[in-house]
């Protein structure tokens, strides 16, 4: 995570909708129409996912063999995006790299949000000294410059995708924890929760019936935005040398190769992965902002 999470909440990147107009229809379609940008973001995420995972089924290339006779070729009819220093087809590389990039993005988003949600919910619900202890741990972890530990990790182990996912997750669950804790803390004292406690509802029932359904909107938004951060972090981590061993690759690895060959003028190795990374991060952020607005509206209507 290169960019700061304040832990205060996912601030909307785009203009927050200020003047809340009364909206009659609640259908998903009309909501979608109101958030054209978010829909565009979702479409881009789907398109890039299809490109990475379905693309190789339609566009057949050999992405494992090395062929130095074909190294660093400029784009041509046979290789629309040229070739890599190992003589692999760049378009095919982009698809394979997209797979690991998106896998890390989705996995970190799910894992870090789930872990942060549990941590924050326990802290907020139990309160008192448990809350204080759990949140001090979060504060302490937020003060650690994470990338230095990544380089340390890279010098000790041969990274696998799982290690990378766990490392990025370890650095990114804290903001979800803070956010969920804040929400739970304010929900816990609401009248309807008090009433259901009075009627004899147990902790489990309160948590699953009243707290989680109300937190889920925030959680989805956090997960979306943390996916964008995870992809950026994965690229940075690859640049620093913690990457899956070849022939596996990622957009960050491809971009790093492009940068290494910058002064040779092999632009086709630089710009495609660069554009892919910017595009996916933009798309996911825009989608997250749209979801954020929808959640806020839902809260307003209550």
């Amino acid at each position: 995570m290169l960019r700061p999470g304040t832990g205060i909440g996912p601030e909307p990147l785009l203009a927050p909708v200020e003047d809340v107009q009364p909206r009659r229809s609640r259908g998903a379609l009309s909501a979608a129409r109101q958030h054209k940008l978010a829909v565009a973001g979702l479409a881009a995420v789907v398109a890039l996912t299809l490109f990475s995972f379905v693309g190789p089924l339609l566009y057949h290339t050999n992405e494992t063999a090395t062929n130095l006779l074909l190294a660093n070729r400029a784009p041509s009819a046979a290789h629309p995006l040229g070739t890599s220093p190992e003589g692999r087809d760049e378009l095919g590389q982009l698809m394979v790299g997209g797979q690991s990039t998106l896998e890390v993005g989705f996995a970190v988003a799910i894992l870090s949000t789930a872990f942060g949600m549990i941590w924050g919910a326990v802290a907020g619900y139990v309160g008192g000294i448990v809350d204080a202890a759990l949140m001090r741990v979060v504060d302490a972890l937020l003060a650690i410059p994470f990338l230095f530990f990544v380089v340390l990790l890279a010098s000790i182990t041969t990274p696998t995708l799982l290690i990378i996912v766990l490392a990025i997750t370890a650095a990114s669950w804290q903001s979800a924890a803070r956010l969920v804790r804040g929400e739970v803390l304010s929900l816990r004292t609401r009248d309807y929760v008090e009433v259901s406690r009075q009627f004899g509802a147990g902790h489990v029932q309160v948590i699953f019936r009243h707290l989680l359904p109300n937190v889920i909107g925030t959680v989805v938004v956090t997960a979306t935005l943390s996916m964008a951060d995870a992809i950026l972090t994965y690229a940075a981590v690859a640049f620093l040398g913690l990457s899956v061993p070849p022939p596996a690759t990622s957009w960050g690895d491809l971009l790093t190769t492009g940068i290494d060959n910058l002064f040779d003028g092999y632009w086709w190795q630089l710009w495609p992965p660069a554009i892919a990374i910017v595009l996916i991060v933009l798309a996911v952020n825009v989608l997250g902002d749209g979801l954020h607005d929808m959640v806020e509206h839902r809260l307003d209507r209550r």
Partner: protein
Amino acid sequence: MLSYLIRRLLQAVLVMLIVSVVVFVILHALPGGLVRAQLGPRASTYSVHQLERTEGLLKPLPVQFGIWLLHLVEGNFGFSYKLNQPVAGLLAHYLPRTLLLVGISSALTVAIGVPMGLWQGYRRNRPDDHALSASMLILYAMPDFLLGVILIILLNLDLPVLPSTATAFGTSLPTDVSVLVLPIAALTLGNVSYYSRYMRASVIDNMLEDYVRTALAKGNSPRRVLVRHVLRNSLSSTITNLGLTLPYVFSGALIIEELFNFPGIGLLFWNASQDRDYPVLLGVVLVVTASVVVGSLLADLGYAIMDPRVRVG
């Protein structure tokens, strides 16, 4: 105020303790042990054993941890066998350069991001606000090193005005300045988007507050209210943000130093990781964490001084 400071200080100590335990565990979980890592795989059992004894590695782990901590407090960070120097000297040489990089970049980030966000909040949802938001969004979506590469392409390859590497840092003042421009720009631009975004949201929130309505009702011009009231109110949270973002700025410096070959602590760290020079690696981690902790402590202190609510509480 005092209890707040004590609490913050305890937290800082906690962070340092966690990090030093983690670092110590890594040091002792090295494949083949610390001594193998230093002497290499071909060292004889005899020399391994001897070094283990002289380094005190045969004592129980908690005792070793205590001795290690004691050495740290004395400023003894161990010895780099790869560079044949005490680690403390290396750190003292390289850390100030990185602090310079991080310091200038943080100051610039605030100096650009805060006014920009203020302006955007004031002009919200007009074309210029949208244009700025969109460009900030694109900057935000770029990894720091991509930003650095684009700057190199624009200002070194296409229009050769600035050097693409900072290896010459430390020779003379004019060189230092020209060499620092691109790394600082790369480190700053990405973070500007964060501050402007935060500031914009803060201004829009504040504009709905009663105190703004009162100030406007008393006949103050919107601009005056913005600068005298809203900006002042948002500055304290900006200082908090400065403390919170510090770990990321240092992480960013690691990447930027590697990209531009800037001879700071990040590059020292990077080279040490290539050589598996563990004493240097662990020393840097400790010193950088300490810098972050001290930096955010200072930020919180500034916040406490600026915000009367904390001063009283």
